[in-house]
């Protein structure tokens, strides 16, 4: 059973169709790449998958611990279901420390009530201690531990991208959505990121869906690729298949003049 099934998804903004009749299946444990020219509707697709937008028509069905359908998708609920994401234009909590950013990732795991917090009842100490330990461990695994007290906004760009992934991982997702994780990175950082994504996928047993313009990254690590153009899903398949596809070549390079 596919972990994510999308049926005939359509989203329009004031008459302009950003995502048109998209259907696809994603199996558990895959690394999926979504590519396409700028404005092809890739980020809109992510926003639909995370409940930031609601579709005009079509369905989104997740088969996670339970079955999640389109109308269950609210932004603040997706981490509870096991879905987590990063943003194209990094959205860290700028004036908070690296550690606090990751701590917020654990939000849906924490259960003690406001009353426990106000009066510091035992469950407060128990949960907080546990979360601080987990945060340290996660930061350690992503090589950010030495920057734990730095403000997020003071990190170098590559580390900010990494921190955003760390924060998303803190929510203990089963599906991780990465929106242009390599944007703005130099080739060395991109190579590191590639290894990181592969490692994360195995280590945390995730399904990864990523939007990316860096073809070396996509072709290297993605098992399957979906190609968007003008809101339509124009092709899908393995990296080799997609590279051979005429429509894809046309979308990227334009039509050959005969």
């Amino acid at each position, binding site marked *: 059973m596919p972990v994510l099934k999308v049926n005939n998804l359509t989203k329009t903004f004031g008459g302009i169709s950003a995502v048109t009749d998209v259907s696809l299946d994603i199996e558990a444990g895959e690394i999926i790449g979504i590519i396409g020219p700028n404005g092809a509707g890739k980020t809109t697709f992510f926003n639909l998958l*995370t409940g930031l937008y609601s579709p005009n028509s079509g369905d989104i069905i997740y088969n996670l611990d339970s079955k999640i359908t389109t109308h269950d998708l609210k932004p*603040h609920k*997706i981490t509870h279901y096991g879905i987590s994401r990063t943003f194209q234009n990094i959205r860290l909590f700028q004036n908070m420390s690296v550690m*606090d950013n990751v701590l917020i990732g654990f939000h849906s795991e924490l259960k003690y009530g406001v009353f426990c917090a106000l009066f510091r009842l035992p469950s407060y100490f128990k949960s907080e201690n546990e979360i601080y330990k987990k945060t340290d461990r996660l930061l350690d695994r992503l090589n950010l531990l030495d920057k734990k007290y730095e403000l997020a906004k003071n990190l170098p760009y590559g580390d900010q991208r990494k921190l955003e992934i760390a924060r998303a991982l803190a929510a203990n997702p089963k599906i991780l959505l990465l929106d242009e994780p390599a944007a703005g990175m130099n080739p060395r950082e991109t190579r590191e990121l590639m290894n990181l994504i592969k490692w994360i996928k195995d280590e945390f047993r995730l399904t990864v869906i990523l939007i990316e313009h860096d073809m070396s990254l996509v072709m290297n690590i993605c098992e399957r690729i979906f190609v968007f153009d003008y809101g339509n899903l124009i092709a899908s398949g393995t990296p080799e298949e997609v590279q051979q596809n005429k429509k894809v070549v046309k979308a990227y390079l334009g039509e050959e003049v005969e």
Partner: protein
Amino acid sequence: MKRLSRKQIMIIIGLLAFYAVTNFMINKNIIDSYLQLNMIVIGINIILAVSLNLITGFTGQFSLGHAAFMSIGAYTSAILTANFGQPFILSIVLSGAAAAIAGILIGVPTLRLKGDYLAIATLGFGEIVRILALNIDYIGGAIGFNDIPQYTNWTWTFILTAATIVLIYNFINSYHGRACAAIREDEIAAEIMGVNATYYKVLAFAMGAFFAGIAGALYANYFYFIKPDSFGFMKSIDILVIVVFGGMKSIAGSIVGAIVLTIISSFLQGIPELRMIIYSLILFGIMIYRPTGLIGDDKFIIGKKKRRSI
């Protein structure tokens, strides 16, 4: 994290000693009634500033109606103690609760608004509360509410001020407080990380209102007399000024700010004609030379260094 760090134990001992000494001095009349009045006003202002800081500083919701919550608490306590002869402790709790309910009622619809729009909506709410109070005869209307029993003393003020600080400090250093800070930084990212922004904004608003209501009860039962115009727009601004002057996101800043500004305004009482002119110049000077407040840049937040960024 231990139950109580050494520093926290020191703070508790320091506070108890401070209370013992001040109370002794009040009993021996070393602290006269004028000084005591200022101490109580400082306490009330600390409660107001720390509670507004929770809303505006920590959660990032710009409110210009804090005095309205104070007035709801003040009138509730006045009615309960003067008209129904209820004990002070009960009327304090109910004053806070009444203000918190008002906070939820106004917060649920308006907290969808952002920035200046929220500010102007809360300002409007404050004015509506004031104008309604002016026209309700049961609570004295424009003439004001008289003969409120004077229950507030230094002990009540001290305990409630300390409790407010501790509870709000505990709140912001829990995952609930982190959620509020995340909303301030980036509401969409906070939501995506599992924070129910609406819930936390309303929660912060209700908690802030609760403590403002308590401050109102202390105020009403200290000054015997309240009138709607004591809780107008300018009072809300006064509270906001303390928060900004002390430093947003800093509880210590709000405490220091409340102390300094209360003392300044108490000195200015002596020159009534020039009082507001000098006050406005001081405000202006602070904003020009220290726009981040006394304790800005996230430094010196009480508590552990590793928590400083919240």
